[in-house]
C-alpha cells in the first residue's frame, strides 16, 4: 500500500513538497510496522535526558539549538540526501506550527528521496565504492532496487540481514538480495571480512592470522568460523538470474596461528554458539549425493543442502544476535550525529568502548522491540534536541563524543551531485552523469576523520566534470541565466546565496560578489559561473553543518 502511494513520486523529478498536503498523505498511510507500544516521544526524551545528564556530569554546556534555516538544510541533507530548494526552505520557514520540525522529519522520512538517500548510504557502507560498470551491474541485478525497497517499505532490518546472508530469495522480486554475496565472487574470506562490519559492526580482518591483538574477544576461530559459513557457497547463473548455490560437503580446513598451532574451522562466530556439524576424517572423501539436498522453493533456483551452513548461520547466529541491533543503531546514530556512540562505528570491540553505554543499550533494545523499525529509529534520533544543536563547537569543549554540538560532516558524492544539480539547474537526477563522476572521485562515506585531500580539491578545481556541468547549465531556468536576468548585483548575490547556501548573503558577501560581477559587464555570464563555482566548492556547501 505504501509503495502504491509513493511510487508516482518519481525520484528523478524534483519534488517540491507542500508540507501540509504531504504531511496529511503520509500521516494517513502510516508505517509498514504495526504500531508498537513504545512511545517515540518518550524515547526521544530519554535520549535527550541521558545526554543532558552526561553534559552535566562532565560540566559541559552544549551549543544552542540551531536556527530553522540551518535545520531545514541539515535535515534535508541528512534525511533525503540533498539540499532543500528555495521554495522548500521557504515553506518550512513560513510554517507557524510549533512542531514543524517534527512534521518535516515525518515528511522527509516517508518520501521517495529518503529511500534513495538511504539506499545510497547503505550501498556504500555494505558494498563499497566501485566502478560505474559495477554500479550498473548492481542496478541490473536489482541490488539497488532491493535496497531502495528496504527503506521505502521500511522492512525489518533483522529480516533484511537474514535475506541478504541467506541469499535464497523467496520470490524473484527479492532477487537483488543475493548481490551482496554474488558480487564478491566466491571470495569467502572477503565475504567474511565484509559481513562482520556490515552487520555486526566489528572488523575481524586482523583475526585471520591470530586472535585480535588488542580486542582479545575477537578470536581467530571467529574469523575462520565466519568464512566456513560461506565456503560451500558458489555463484551460479540460473534462469532466474544470479544465485548462490551451496554444497552439502567440503569446506573443512584447519587454520594455524602465528605460533603454528592449528585448529579446525568450526562453525562459530563472535559471541555466539558453535553449531554442531559432523567433521569427516582428514583423509575421508565424502561423496556428494543427491539425497543430501532438497529442491529449491523457487523453480529454477539451485537445490538446497539439507544441512545448509548459510541457513544455520542465519537462523542460529544472525537472527537476534545482539550485535545486529547494536551495530545498526550505532551506525544510524553515526549517520545523523556525525559519529558513532562507538567510534569508529564499525569497530564495536573492547578497544572502542561506547561513549554512552546506556544510551547504546537503550537504542538497541528499543530497536529490537520495535522489530528493527528503521524509520522509527531515524525519526527518533532526528527529533532529539542533540541532533538539532548548533554546529559551532562551544568554547572549552573538545571531545566530539559528548555530542554537545552538531558535528559537521562532508557531503557524500551523491549528496554533492544531487545538491549541485538542484542548486544550479533546479532539478536533479539521481543517476545523472555528474553524480556518477563525483562518485568516482569523492569516495568517502562517513569517514573516520574529516581530513580533506588535495586530490579532491584538484578534482573540484580542474576536473572537466564540475566545470562542464556549470558551463553547460545554460537553460533559461538554470541559475546562471536567472541570475543574469536580475537587475542589481545585490539581487544577483541574494539569489545565488539563497539557492546554493540556503541563506541570505551578508553585506560583505554582497559587496564581494557585486564588485566581481561589475568589474566586467561584458563577461557577466562567465563571471556568474565563476561565482557559482566558488560557492559550490566552498566549505559551507561541502559540509553539512
Amino acid at each position: 500500500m505504501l509503495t502504491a502511494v509513493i511510487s508516482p513520486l518519481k525520484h528523478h523529478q524534483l519534488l517540491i513538497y507542500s508540507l501540509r498536503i504531504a504531511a496529511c498523505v503520509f500521516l494517513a498511510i502510516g508505517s509498514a510496522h504495526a504500531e508498537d507500544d513504545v512511545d517515540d516521544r518518550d524515547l526521544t526524551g530519554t535520549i535527550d535526558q541521558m545526554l543532558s545528564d552526561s553534559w552535566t556530569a562532565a560540566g559541559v554546556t552544549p551549543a544552542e539549538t540551531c536556527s530553522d534555516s540551518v535545520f531545514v538544510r541539515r535535515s534535508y541533507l541528512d534525511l533525503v540526501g540533498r539540499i532543500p530548494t528555495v521554495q522548500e526552505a521557504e515553506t518550512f520557514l513560513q510554517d507557524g506550527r510549533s512542531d514543524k520540525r517534527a512534521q518535516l522529519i515525518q515528511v522527509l522520512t516517508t518520501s521517495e528521496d529518503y529511500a534513495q538517500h538511504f539506499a545510497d548510504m547503505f550501498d556504500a557502507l555494505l558494498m563499497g565504492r566501485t566502478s560505474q560498470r559495477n554500479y550498473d551491474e548492481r542496478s541490473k541485478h536489482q541490488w539497488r532496487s532491493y535496497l531502495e525497497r528496504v527503506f521505502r517499505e521500511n522492512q525489518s532490518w533483522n529480516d533484511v540481514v537474514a535475506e541478504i546472508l541467506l541469499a535464497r530469495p523467496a520470490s524473484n522480486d527479492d532477487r537483488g538480495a543475493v548481490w551482496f554475496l554474488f558480487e564478491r565472487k566466491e571470495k569467502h574470506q572477503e565475504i567474511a571480512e565484509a559481513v562482520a562490519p556490515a552487520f555486526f559492526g566489528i572488523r575481524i580482518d586482523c583475526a585471520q592470522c591470530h586472535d585480535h591483538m588488542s580486542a582479545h574477544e575477537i578470536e581467530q576461530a571467529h574469523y575462520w568460523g565466519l568464512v566456513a559459513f560461506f565456503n560451500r557457497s558458489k555463484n551460479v547463473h540460473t534462469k532466474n538470474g544470479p544465485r548462490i548455490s551451496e554444497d552439502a560437503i567440503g569446506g573443512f580446513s584447519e587454520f594455524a596461528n602465528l605460533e603454528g598451532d592449528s585448529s579446525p574451522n568450526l562453525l562459530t562466530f563472535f559471541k555466539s554458539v558453535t553449531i554442531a556439524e559432523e567433521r569427516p576424517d582428514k583423509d575421508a572423501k565424502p561423496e556428494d549425493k543427491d539425497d543430501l539436498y532438497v529442491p529449491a522453493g523457487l523453480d529454477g533456483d539451485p537445490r538446497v543442502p539439507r544441512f545448509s551452513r548459510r541457513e544455520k548461520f542465519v537462523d542460529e547466529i544472525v537472527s537476534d544476535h545482539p550485535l545486529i541491533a547494536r551495530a545498526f543503531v550505532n551506525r544510524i546514530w553515526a549517520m545523523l550525529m556525525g559519529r558513532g556512540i562507538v567510534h569508529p562505528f564499525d569497530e564495536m570491540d573492547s578497544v572502542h568502548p561506547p561513549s554512552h553505554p546506556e544510551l547504546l543499550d537503550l537504542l538497541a533494545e528499543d530497536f529490537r522491540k520495535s522489530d528493527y523499525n528503521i524509520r522509527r529509529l531515524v525519526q527518533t534520533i532526528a527529533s532529539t534536541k542533540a541532533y538539532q544543536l548548533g554546529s559551532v563547537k562551544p568554547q572549552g569543549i573538545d571531545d566530539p563524543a559528548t555530542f554537545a554540538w552538531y558535528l559537521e560532516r562532508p557531503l557524500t558524492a551523491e549528496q554533492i551531485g544531487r545538491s549541485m544539480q538542484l542548486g544550479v539547474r533546479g532539478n536533479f537526477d539521481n543517476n545523472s552523469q555528474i553524480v556518477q563522476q563525483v562518485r568516482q572521485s569523492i569516495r568517502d562515506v562517513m569517514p573516520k576523520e574529516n581530513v580533506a585531500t588535495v586530490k579532491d580539491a584538484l578534482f573540484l578545481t580542474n576536473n572537466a566534470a564540475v566545470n562542464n556541468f556549470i558551463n553547460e547549465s545554460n537553460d533559461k531556468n538554470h541559475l546562471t541565466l536567472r541570475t543574469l536576468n536580475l537587475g542589481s548585483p545585490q539581487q544577483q548575490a541574494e539569489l545565488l546565496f539563497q539557492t546554493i547556501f540556503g541563506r541570505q548573503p551578508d553585506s560583505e558577501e554582497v559587496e564581494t560578489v557585486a564588485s566581481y560581477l561589475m568589474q566586467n559587464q561584458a563577461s557577466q555570464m562567465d563571471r556568474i559561473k565563476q561565482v557559482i563555482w566558488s560557492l559550490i566548492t566552498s566549505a559551507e556547501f561541502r559540509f553539512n553543518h
Partner: protein
Amino acid sequence: MKTSRSNTATDGCGSPEHDVHRRLFLQGYLAAGAASIASYSGLFSVPTIADEVKRHGKKCILLWLCGAPSQFETWDPKPGTPTSGPFGAISTNLPGVKISQLMPKCATMMDKLAVIRSMKTEPSEHFQGIDVLTRGDKPRPPFVRPILGSVIAEQLGQLDSPVPQFVLLDPCPEGNEFKAFKAGNWAGWLGAEYGPVRAGGEYSIPDILRPENLTETDHSDREALRKFFSRKFQNEQRSEAAASYNAAFERVRGLMSCAPLFDLKNLPEDDRQRYGLGAFAQHALQARHLIENGSTFVMVANGMPWDNHVFQHEMHQMLVPELDNVIYQLVTDLHLRGMLDDTLVIAMGEFGRTPWLNEARGRDHYPNAWSMAMAGAGIKGGTVFGATDEHGIDVAENEVDNRRLFATIFRALGISHQEEYVLPGLPTFQRVEGDTKPINEILV
C-alpha cells in the same frame, strides 16, 4: 599526523615514542590493502595539526632495475672464465677494480661509487624478491611493511612541500610480477599518505592542469572568491573540517605549479640528450629534477626489462650502457650541483642472474651472489665491498643480505635502522629486523 621519528639508534623501552609507533603500526595494519600506488591521495592529505618536526634534508633516488640485471655484465665481470659471457672487463679509476666493458662511464667515476659484490638473498622469484628488496625484508603477515620510499618519505619528507614526496616514475603499465606488486599496498603500516605518486608515460597526477576553457585569470579569480567565502565560513564556524578543506585548496595551486616537473618536455633539451632518450634515462633525469625541486624519494623503473631469460646479451647490450650513462650523469649532476652529499643514489634489482647461460641464450634468476651500487649521501665512494668466487657462483667474502643492505641505506640517510615497533602479544621488532649491523666500510 604521523610525526614520530627518533634519531638515536637505541630507544629505551617505555619511551613515549613506542606508543606513537604502535598507533602507526595499527593504523597501517588495519588499512592493509588500501594503499596501493593507485591511491596517491594520502600524500597530500592536509593535517589538521601542524607537523613541527624538522627534516633532515636528505633525499634518495632508487634506480629500480626491475627484473634483475646480470652482475656479470655490470659490476662483477669474470673475464676469461666459462661464466663470463661475451662482454669483456675494463679497468676503472680504482686501481685493480674492473667492471663490465658495457660501463665505460662508470669506470671513470668509481671513486664516487660504492659497489657491493657480495649480495646474497633468499627469494628467487620476482614477486618475493621485489618485496624483500624494496621493503627490506620478507613479509610478516598480517603486517605489511612499508616500501623503502614510504619509510623515507615519512622520515625525511617535507610535508609542507607542494611537490609530492614519494614519486614512482614508471611508464610501463604491465610488468608481470612487478605489475602485481604495483597493485599492492606500498605504504604498509605507515598509511596511504606515504604511498607514491605515480607518473611517467601515460601516468600523471589527475586534474593537475587548468581546464582548457578557463583562463588563468578566471581560474585564480574564482579561487579567490572561493577562498573568501570558505574562509569566512571556517572562521565563523571555527571549523576544523573547513580548515583542512581550505588548506587542501591552498595546495592546489602549488601542486599545479609543479605540473611542469612532471612534463618531460620541460626538461632542458641538452640534459635530455645527455641522459639518453630511452624512457628510463628520461625519467632518471626527471628524478633529478624532482629531487632538486623538493621531492624526497623518487623511484625510477621501466616495467621489468632486466628479466632476460632469453636474449640476455642482446638485451644487456642496450640496457647496461643506458644504466651506465644514467648513473654517470646523475651522480655527476648531483655532485656538480652540490647535492650529492645529501642525495643517495641506489641502483639495484631484486636479485642477480645465473653464472651459466640457459639454452635460450638467457641468464636465469640468481639470488646467491649478486651486485648492486650506491653513491651519494652517507656513502663512501671508491669502495668495493665483498667479492664472489672465481666463476661468480658464490659469495667469497663479506656476505650482505637484504637486512644489512637496508640497515646501511637507513644509516646513510640518518634514519635509525633499529627503531622498534611494539605490539601487545607479538614479538617486538625493529625497522630492520635481527641484530643487523650496517656496512660501516662503505659508510662515511
